[in-house]
């Protein structure tokens, strides 16, 4: 059986392998990727997604009263590939539906308990970092969350066990980042 490129009015463009069951993508005569029954694999180079990604940090220190989850401000950006991060509201509202890996670290100016959470559309959906009495070290949390690509946004909330401020004396000590890992 010969390899075929098949385009018809109902199934779109199809690449059909020969009896080997394998389709190769070549550049200048060199195979860079192979598709077979196991899926797509790279023979050389790296397969990387190009979904939305951002990284932001707190540049102006925020005071947090004890006992309540405060939306944490990250007013400055390291990068924002698709202009999906809102520095005014400190929220990430991506325009591609899918599963996003998000991460954040908070450093306090003095000893306090750290309790942190990710919130989607204002409601806490993942919590962690429950450290009872931490000094000036940061607490990092991560989560994998689904965002619908149109209205869903993710923010980060911080609860301190005592009234404290977030430490910004060390450049970029408190930060928030995320990226698409799988489209919906």
């Amino acid at each position, binding site marked *: 059986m010969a390899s075929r490129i098949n385009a018809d009015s109902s199934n779109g463009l199809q690449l059909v392998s020969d009896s080997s069951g394998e389709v190769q993508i070549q550049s200048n005569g060199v195979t860079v990727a192979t598709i077979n029954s196991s899926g797509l694999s790279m023979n050389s180079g790296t397969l990387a997604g190009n979904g939305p990604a951002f990284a932001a940090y707190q540049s102006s220190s925020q005071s947090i*009263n004890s006992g*309540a*989850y405060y*939306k944490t401000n990250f007013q400055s950006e390291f990068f924002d590939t698709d202009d999906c991060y809102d520095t005014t509201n400190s929220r990430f509202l991506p325009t591609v539906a899918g599963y996003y890996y998000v991460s954040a670290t908070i450093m306090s100016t003095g000893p306090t308990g750290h*309790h942190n*959470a990710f919130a989607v559309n204002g409601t806490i959906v993942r919590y962690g970092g*429950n450290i009872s009495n931490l000094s000036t070290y940061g607490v990092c949390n991560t989560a994998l969350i689904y965002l619908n690509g149109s209205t869903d946004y993710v923010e980060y909330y911080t609860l301190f*066990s005592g009234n404290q401020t977030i430490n910004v004396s060390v450049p970029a000590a408190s930060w928030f980042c995320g990226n698409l890992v799988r489209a919906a």
Partner: protein
Amino acid sequence: MTLYEKIKTLYPSLELQDFIAGTGTILLQNDGKGDYIKSWNHPTETQPTQEELDNV
């Protein structure tokens, strides 16, 4: 006095763990416009009214 401190004054038996997401049953939140009670599901203590909080 913060909202947390007012609630602690009204209900001295409450502890910080009662306010921690996941383990607690009371959730106080601040979205940038002041502290408020996001949810209150404590099994024995009833949610204080605004008047009760104002009088603390």
